[in-house]
């Protein structure tokens, strides 16, 4: 590639994680920017391979094949995400539960291809994290990291950009994004009700992450909602359209906390947001701001 001396913004985009992942680098040599972006995409792909429910070779699939009491060693990254999930499970008294895979399979949202068991009874609490990256399921458990892994992938991609010396950068995985650097940028929040038409509420961010989740009700697009991943046990609570955006310093928190705010009671949501130094906005189905938390 031709080397340009001026430092312009390099933006790239690839289909990944079931969506489009965009990575932008600003104020950096163009060649190096491309190299950093390439490496960040490779990292997102690596995380996807580790944590995909759809991939029989993933660590998530290997975990879901475990019998009660059996353990395997997983990567540092999968271990870390499970640790985050356990913390959120405890803090939300079980509302944030990644062990919803079987219900999602039963509803036809996730494929049953990679599973061997049919009787799952475990919750996130039945995941035991041992030394040296060993993970044991106390009961047969079917996990899906759909509600947290996308944010984690964004953080990992940002880490790679930082390792490459990128001063200003942004990673946006289908609306879950994080930016680094001095630049203040505007992020538009899009509500479920305005899907594909226009964008909504603007938020200015710097050195922060933001994620948005929507719940649509009785709608053919409801499968688009990432919040569905934890909606199942509480479906009676969520019978109205909601969009939640959370800003935090890491995308893994922003991603996971959107689900907490959607599903938990106000007190629990506030407690979690405070703990993770995050802030949330909640909109109704018409795009009207209902509340700001923290």
């Amino acid at each position: 590639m031709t080397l340009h001396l001026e430092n312009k913004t390099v933006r790239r985009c690839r289909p990944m994680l079931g969506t489009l992942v965009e990575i932008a680098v600003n104020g950096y040599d163009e060649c190096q920017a491309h190299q950093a972006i390439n490496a960040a995409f490779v990292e997102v792909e690596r995380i996807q391979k580790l944590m995909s429910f759809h991939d029989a070779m993933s660590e998530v699939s290997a975990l879901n094949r475990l019998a009660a009491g059996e353990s395997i060693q997983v990567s540092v990254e999968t271990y870390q995400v499970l640790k985050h999930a356990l913390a959120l499970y405890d803090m939300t008294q079980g509302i944030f539960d990644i062990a919803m895979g079987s219900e999602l399979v039963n509803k036809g949202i996730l494929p049953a291809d990679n599973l061997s068991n049919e009787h799952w009874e475990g919750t996130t609490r039945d995941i035991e994290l041992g030394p040296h990256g060993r993970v044991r399921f106390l009961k047969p458990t079917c996990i899906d990291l759909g509600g947290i892994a996308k944010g984690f992938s964004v953080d990992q991609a940002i880490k790679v950009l930082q390792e490459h010396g990128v001063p200003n950068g942004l990673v946006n995985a289908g609306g879950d994004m994080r930016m680094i650097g001095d630049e203040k940028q505007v992020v538009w929040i899009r509500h479920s009700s305005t899907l594909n038409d226009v964008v909504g509420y603007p938020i200015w961010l710097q050195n922060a992450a933001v994620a948005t989740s929507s719940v649509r009700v009785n709608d053919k697009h409801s499968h688009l909602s990432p919040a569905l991943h934890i909606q199942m046990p509480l479906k009676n609570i969520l019978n109205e359209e909601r969009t939640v955006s959370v800003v935090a310093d890491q995308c893994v928190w922003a991603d996971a906390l959107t689900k907490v705010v959607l599903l938990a009671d106000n007190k629990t949501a506030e407690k979690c947001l405070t703990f993770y130094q995050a802030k949330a906005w909640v909109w109704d189905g018409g795009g009207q701001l209902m509340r700001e938390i923290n």
Partner: protein
Amino acid sequence: MSLVKTSQLSFHLVSIPGIVIVAAMPGFAAVYLNVEQAQQVIFPGEKFTDVSLDLSAEKQKILEEKLGVSLGTMKQKIWRAQNGGYFFVDQVIGKHELIIYALGINIDGSIRQVEIMEYREAYGGEIRHKRWRRQFEGKAVDAPLELNQDIKNISGATLSCRHVTEGVKRILGFYDIALRK
């Protein structure tokens, strides 16, 4: 595990007391790479020659049957890389979006890389969105925000990459019949 508090690296959230809507809101659009850039991203350092296909009527028929689309509707352009790989530029049009993307195919027929070159969302929510806009009316201007400006970052309901995935499959089928040796 014990709970680990997030780092003290604080983020700066700049809330907006109000903005002024100056114009209708555009849909999201982004240009990532032109053809030459996409070629160099996918096949660094390679040189390319245009490929124009002169398919026999018979082959055309096989292709159309296999791919389930009329060849006339396929918009892809093809280049051959010096190393024997192929580089395609194709576009997919969904109900709400137009995506132009590049696909590199290795000499063994495997996918080398997919890069989005251009992405454009349909425009059309202006009227429906009046109610949303009202919440900003009459508020102080805090930031010079022109809604006609390029919208770079959207958080929230986004499109899946399904159409691109389908397009890539179609091209692989096309490659198999028309180009593979």
